[in-house]
């Protein structure tokens, strides 16, 4: 390889990262679509309490088990792998020098945060605004957002937008908490607790994303970063109690509540 000092040197590349989205990771690592490429979490416990640490996948061990047919606690090798969410025992990366298949997986801000969690959050926010009849206030504030360097001012009302791109979602992350705070102003005593909790949860998720965008995380940032991280994923009582995932539940809640 031609080097910066003008000399040619021998180079031995080591595979250290494969950046792609979840569907491709699932194919590459030979796991099910509801399995994590990094740990052995059962598919019904995804996104559980972050303090529960699951065992990291050991693809080398799986390969040995698959090749030698070692006796396991499960009835057979297929059942053993099925329990772990693994489809094939012989991972395509196993055996490459100095390559750890688990570490090839890299977090992806675009698909995981902007097109993933933000999208879920906004579905929840829409439901919340509808329930409390604040959609119009939100739309009005949305259209009045002033310009800022690096921020594209929305040209349409929020409800008129049909499709969101990654960049637009990142844009939304910068202003959603302030717009929501403005839309939820003038609250009465019965709404106080709900609105306060909604703003707390949305702000926490945005704060978490802001921390992720910092290029150099200094050692002194770690306590706050860790706290924000745990708070965002661990403190879920309000999101859970109002349903970020399934909007039909909100309708049913409204029916029962009325």
């Amino acid at each position, binding site marked *: 390889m031609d080097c910066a000092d003008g000399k040619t040197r021998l180079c031995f590349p080591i595979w250290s990262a494969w950046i792609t989205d979840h569907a491709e990771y699932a194919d590459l690592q030979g796991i099910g679509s509801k399995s994590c490429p990094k740990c052995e979490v059962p598919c019904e416990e*995804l996104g559980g309490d972050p303090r529960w640490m699951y065992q990291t996948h050991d693809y080398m061990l799986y390969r040995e088990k698959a090749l030698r047919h070692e006796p396991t606690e499960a009835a057979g090798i297929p059942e053993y792998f099925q329990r772990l969410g693994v489809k094939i025992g012989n991972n395509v990366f196993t055996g490459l020098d100095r390559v750890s298949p688990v570490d090839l997986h890299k977090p992806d801000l675009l698909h995981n945060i902007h097109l993933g969690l933000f999208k*879920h959050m906004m579905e929840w926010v829409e439901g919340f605004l509808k329930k409390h009849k604040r959609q119009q206030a939100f739309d009005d504030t949305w259209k009045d957002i002033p310009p800022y360097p690096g921020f594209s001012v929305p040209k349409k009302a929020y409800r008129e937008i049909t499709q969101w791109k990654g960049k637009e979602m990142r844009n939304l992350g910068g*202003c959603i908490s302030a717009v929501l705070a403005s839309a939820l102003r003038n609250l009465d005593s019965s709404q106080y607790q709900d609105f306060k909790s909604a703003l707390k949860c949305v702000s926490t998720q945005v704060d978490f994303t802001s921390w992720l965008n910092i290029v150099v995380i200094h050692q002194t940032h770690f306590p706050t970063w860790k706290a924000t991280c745990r708070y965002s994923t661990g403190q879920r009582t309000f999101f859970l109690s*109002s349903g970020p995932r399934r909007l039909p539940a909100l309708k049913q*809640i409204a029916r029962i509540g009325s």
Partner: protein
Amino acid sequence: MADQCAKEVRHRTVANRRRLADQERVERSARRADLIRRENHFNFIKMQYLTHFASHVRRFGSISMYSTKIGELAHKDQIKDGYRRSKKNEATRQILSHYGRQCVLGIRLQTIEAFSKVDGVIVVEDSGIEMPTIPSNCTPRWVLKGRMKNTSTLTELCTALDIHYSNMMEEILRFIRQTAADDRRLPADPAELRLLPVEGFAQLEIPVPDLQETDRFQINRARCTGTKAFRNCGSRNDSVWIQTGGEANYGDLRGGVVARLPALLKIRNILSEAAAVHRLALVRILHPINGGRFHIPSRHIQVGNRINGPDMRIVSIGAVIGQAQVIPSGEKQWIVNHRIDLRTFNEIY
């Protein structure tokens, strides 16, 4: 007696009814909570990924460098640019060598830059000649742009921007009294001030140091068009941050205040020998509500128009430290959006 009995029975019935209603409300709430617990979940893969973020940052550093955006741009940088510069015949090797050459040159430039920061001289390889380096990262200046027409005196400027002349004069005089008395100082006599040549501007370029790399600057372009439309979309008088005194002021705002930017002007003091030029900004300070501390339910800082006392102020353009974003929240009140970028988020948290 009979009446009293009837009243007692009625009272009991009302109490009973209330108790039943309370009971029903409790049951309904329990049913609601139970439904929520059953129907909602975080059982999806993107939530699981979050649990690995902290350990990944600790082991491999910030995750923004692993964004798929880079991979998508690589189609252009690595392949298309290389193909365009090739002979279009057996292009594969040429594309590869082009990208390699670009990387090598990039690394070489970075090496030179790193050496120049340490020693101040570069030693040219094999020849031993020492070359002094040119400081490449000098601090950019605040620049006024977009000169307005027909604003050659203060009176004309006030008319063009729809600002009361007496207010403007009062603020300029206050600004003059605060500056040191020297050759450069503007005259404190309104009659003399009225004669000085003035230029009005519609844009201020503010250099803002980057959060992570302090030797780099981003340029914020704050607009102030007065009553004129900006690109057919209404007038623009942007919000800016003004540094006022120490960090102890204004609670969580830490000495910074948000202000509107109604006018940008340049005054040349032709009456003195130095003929100094003063670049000034007329700002309308937005009063921090609750002493600039976070409003607990909304988790944001709120600002509003000042009710008592003057809200206009003249400052030197160097006191404008960056652009701010405020979201309208009711009558003459705004919410300071401190999450708009990392720099603001780092300062107000």
